């Protein structure tokens, strides 16, 4: 049955497989796009939101704060930093509140004022209207704040530029020395837009590094934003995964050395799991074209279970017995244990999350390879030398306690019942509903980001209107038609405000209408002369005005490209976005006082509700797939055990353990996320091992005692590995470590209590 029949062939095939895997790995690209771990979307609206979250302009914004000196030096540092970042190719734009960053905007506003100003259409340039404008200007010329007016009046007597500025969003941070500062004046603020998407962790890391390098090391720099999240969680996950894997690996190694007292045997125990990781990663790289950094980190922990397979065999060996002989005895049960875990990975493999599918493939192929290597390659490697000369056995007291666990089986049922009641009663709080919580970002980073955003006057948006159209212009025209309605809602205090792209730059159709309303040069000159009659303006003062109106007519409407490098251009990119085959205009609504009245009048998208729906949809998929995986496992068990009662006997303890551990996790304040679900699958795999082995019929008491010992050791290694992981400061690794620790302990106890023998 096992590889003892043709050991050389098995070892040769194994080496060939490792060589192939090694070759594939040498050509593998490791990617770090965190978006792979975002749920996929069901509706176009959700797709749009996720696309924005992944690579939209909002995701590319880095918030930067510089502190650690007096405000004069900080203002200087802010200017120097902005200049350096602007010259770097990593950033599309950098704003620090200084004039430098707004020059392009001013120029665009000035050039296109007669298409951007809402007053520019209609009778703006008739003689009476011009007369009224000139009289108003004259009255204002002597005021203290007339400096800008005096400079602009000859070019823009009707004050269109000012009207454009008045319509721009007002909220902006306090300024000192001409640049943005926090209210307390301790930190200079900058906003930078990276060229790379926010979820491209490696590119973001590079951009963040450039920011840190560009600032005097004596000053303190804080950088926040989606890109920082991506970079930080990537490095943290990688570091924690490696560090903790190393730590738990060392602990497991020490434990196994203590038990086997033979380095050769301990080394053999690591062969299957190492083979599994190598081949599994190669399989992922082959199937997906790349391997996600997070997959790599999690995968190692997922197949950490495989380190137990050799132990089940080795610890089953009697004094003087070879590994092959012992394995032959235990193989039918071990094979079933391996195959059930492989099927557990199916749930993830079929998931529509790209990241989860990778994890699923890695764990399925990795576990399969580890199992096959244990069954067919290890005997050949181990040879005929005995595993041990002394009998393996656990302390008598421990054994007795385990045997007595059976009398506690009613307690297991009571606990499971209580858990069920708790879970049903708190069903509303069971799942994590916040999409943001799905991101593996440590809480302190999120808090820092919220604070910087507040200082910059960038409010969190919950409600928005989505106007879609087959083309950019169609979407813009649709949004334009909303303005009157929105103003009415503001007047009725249903909402406090809104952000409408066409308020800043109208659709081409509206721009053309305004251009058409500009008078011919001769008409305009006549109108102006009539208006000037009797006013104390020098002759010829308004020649620039006449000239520039004519230039505006010739220049035509403002296209998207004319805003390149401007702050307004960036803003428009966040508000007007490609959506599927068409375009969409996002209209964020602020200070929604009456969501119901609002919803009755305009089709509003509630981002919170939408993200909850998204997650609920995903949960449904996950639960359906989990049910599928469980069904497949039950079928496999039925096939392997050929006895319906035996199947129930094996599955029941695991099901109860999952129930109990879910309740414990909830009691510990955890809300279940996709990562808990992954961990639960792992618990299922481990629990089924316990259950299968506890339930295994053994010929005599001696074998029974060895099996018990094997179970103690494997449970101890699992707990060592995952309790270590629970110490990670990363929320995701912590969730997995905690869930598996709790779940494995629970599964061990329920399996012991409900075992038949």
């Amino acid at each position, binding site marked *: 049955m096992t590889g003892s029949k043709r050991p050389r062939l098995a070892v040769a095939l194994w080496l060939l497989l490792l060589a192939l895997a090694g070759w594939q790995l040498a050509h593998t690209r490791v990617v770090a796009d965190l978006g792979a771990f975002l749920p996929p979307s069901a509706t176009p609206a959700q797709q749009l939101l996720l696309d924005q979250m992944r690579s939209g302009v909002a995701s590319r914004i880095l918030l930067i704060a510089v502190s650690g000196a007096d405000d004069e030096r900080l203002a200087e540092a802010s200017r120097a930093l902005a200049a350096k970042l602007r010259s770097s190719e990593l950033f599309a734009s950098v704003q620090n509140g200084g004039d430098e960053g707004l020059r392009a905007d001013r120029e665009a506003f000035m050039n296109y004022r007669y298409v951007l100003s809402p007053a520019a259409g209609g009778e703006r340039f008739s003689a009476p209207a011009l007369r009224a404008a000139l009289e108003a200007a004259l009255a204002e*010329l*002597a005021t*203290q*704040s007339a400096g800008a007016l*005096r400079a602009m009046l000859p070019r823009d007597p009707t004050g269109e530029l000012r009207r454009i500025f008045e319509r721009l969003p007002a909220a902006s941070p306090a*300024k*000192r020395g001409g640049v943005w500062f926090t209210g307390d004046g301790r930190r200079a603020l900058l906003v930078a837009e990276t060229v790379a998407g926010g979820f491209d962790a490696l590119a973001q890391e590079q951009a963040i590094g450039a920011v840190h390098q560009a600032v005097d090391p004596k000053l303190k720099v804080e950088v926040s934003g989606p890109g920082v999240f991506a970079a930080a969680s990537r490095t943290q996950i990688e570091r924690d995964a490696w560090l903790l894997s190393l730590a738990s690996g060392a602990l497991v190694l020490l434990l196994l050395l203590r038990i086997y007292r033979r380095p050769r045997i301990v080394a053999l125990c690591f062969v299957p799991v190492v083979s599994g990781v190598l081949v599994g990663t190669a399989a992922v790289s082959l199937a997906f074209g790349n391997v996600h950094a997070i997959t790599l980190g999690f995968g190692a922990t997922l197949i950490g279970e495989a380190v137990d397979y050799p132990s089940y065999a080795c610890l089953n060996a009697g004094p003087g017995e070879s590994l092959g002989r012992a394995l032959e005895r235990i193989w039918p049960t071990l094979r079933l244990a391996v195959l059930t875990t492989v099927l557990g990975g199916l749930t993830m493999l079929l998931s529509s999350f790209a990241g989860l599918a990778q994890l699923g493939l890695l764990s399925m192929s990795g576990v399969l390879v580890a199992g096959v290597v244990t069954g067919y390659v290890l005997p050949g490697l181990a040879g005929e030398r005995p595993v041990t000369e002394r009998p393996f056995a656990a302390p008598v007291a421990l054994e007795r306690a385990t045997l007595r666990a059976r009398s506690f089986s009613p307690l297991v049922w009571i606990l499971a019942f209580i858990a069920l009641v708790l879970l049903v009663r708190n069903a509303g709080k069971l799942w994590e509903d916040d999409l943001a919580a799905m991101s593996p970002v440590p809480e302190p980073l999120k808090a820092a980001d919220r604070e910087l955003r507040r200082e910059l006057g960038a409010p969190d948006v919950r409600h928005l209107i989505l106007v879609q159209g087959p083309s950019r212009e169609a979407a813009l025209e649709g949004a334009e038609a909303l303005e009157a309605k929105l103003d009415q809602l503001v007047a009725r205090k249903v909402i406090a405000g809104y952000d409408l792209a066409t308020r800043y730059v109208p659709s081409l159709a509206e721009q053309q209408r305004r251009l058409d309303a500009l008078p011919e040069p001769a008409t305009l000159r006549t109108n102006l002369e009539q208006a000037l009659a009797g006013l104390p*303006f*020098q002759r010829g003062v308004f020649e620039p005005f006449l000239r520039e109106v004519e230039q505006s007519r010739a220049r035509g409407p403002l296209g998207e490209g004319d805003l390149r490098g401007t702050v307004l251009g960036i803003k428009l990119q966040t508000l007007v976005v490609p959506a599927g085959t068409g375009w969409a205009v996002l209209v964020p609504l602020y200070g929604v006082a009456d969501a119901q009245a609002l919803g009755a009048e305009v089709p509003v998208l509630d981002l919170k509700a939408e993200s909850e729906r998204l997650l609920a949809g995903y949960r449904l998929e996950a639960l359906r797939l989990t049910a599928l995986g469980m069904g497949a496992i039950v079928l496999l068990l039925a096939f392997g055990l050929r006895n319906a009662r035996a199947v129930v006997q094996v599955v029941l303890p695991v099901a109860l353990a999952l129930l109990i551990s879910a309740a414990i996790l909830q009691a510990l304040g955890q809300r279940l996320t996709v990562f808990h679900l992954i961990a639960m699958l792992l618990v299922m795999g481990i629990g089924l091992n316990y259950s299968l082995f506890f339930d295994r019929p053994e010929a005599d008491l001696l074998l029974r005692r060895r099996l018990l010992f094997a179970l103690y050791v494997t449970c101890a290694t699992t707990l060592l590995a995952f309790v270590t992981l629970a110490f990670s400061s990363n929320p995701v690794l912590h969730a997995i470590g905690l869930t598996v620790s709790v779940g494995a302990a629970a599964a061990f106890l329920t399996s012991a209590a409900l075992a038949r023998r």
Partner: protein
Amino acid sequence: MISGVRSWLALLALAAAPSFGQGWNLDALMAEMAAVPASRTRFVETRHLAMLTQPLELRGSLSYERPHRLVKHVETPFDELLTVDGEALSLVNKTKGEKRSLSLREQPALGALVESVRATLAGDRAQLERHYRVQFSGRRDAWRLHLVPRTTAVRAHVESITVSGAAARPQRIEVLESTGDRSVMTIVHDGK
């Protein structure tokens, strides 16, 4: 003996109070200004704008309170109140019903303009010289300060400012703007 002491005192007096002699200078002017705790005056400001065929005339009051509060209240032809206190500047136009406030830190050029009057009234030479190259001429009862902005940012707005007066009383402030516009503020002190 007594006459010896007297002549010593006379010498000391000369050294300590150069204002009485030929050496009356910027430091002396500043010292004299610094001794005034508060002042309240009326002004007439004539603005000669290049684009207009006739000058604009503003009337109102100007008050100063040590160390850094300055209020310029235009009463005609419109009502506008400009208050600077430390770094905070507020502008209230009652005629138009508008109110604006900002910090001088945000507007370095505006800050320099304010200091031409405020630092002069405060007798704060260091502050004045931080923003301007200062040229002093004249004597105690007819002095003249010629101020040229040090930074190009400020020179983009103002070419030069000339403050003239007698003793601790500025009487005329002339601002020459980079655009060619010019304004002359004549200050009338109560009682004199």
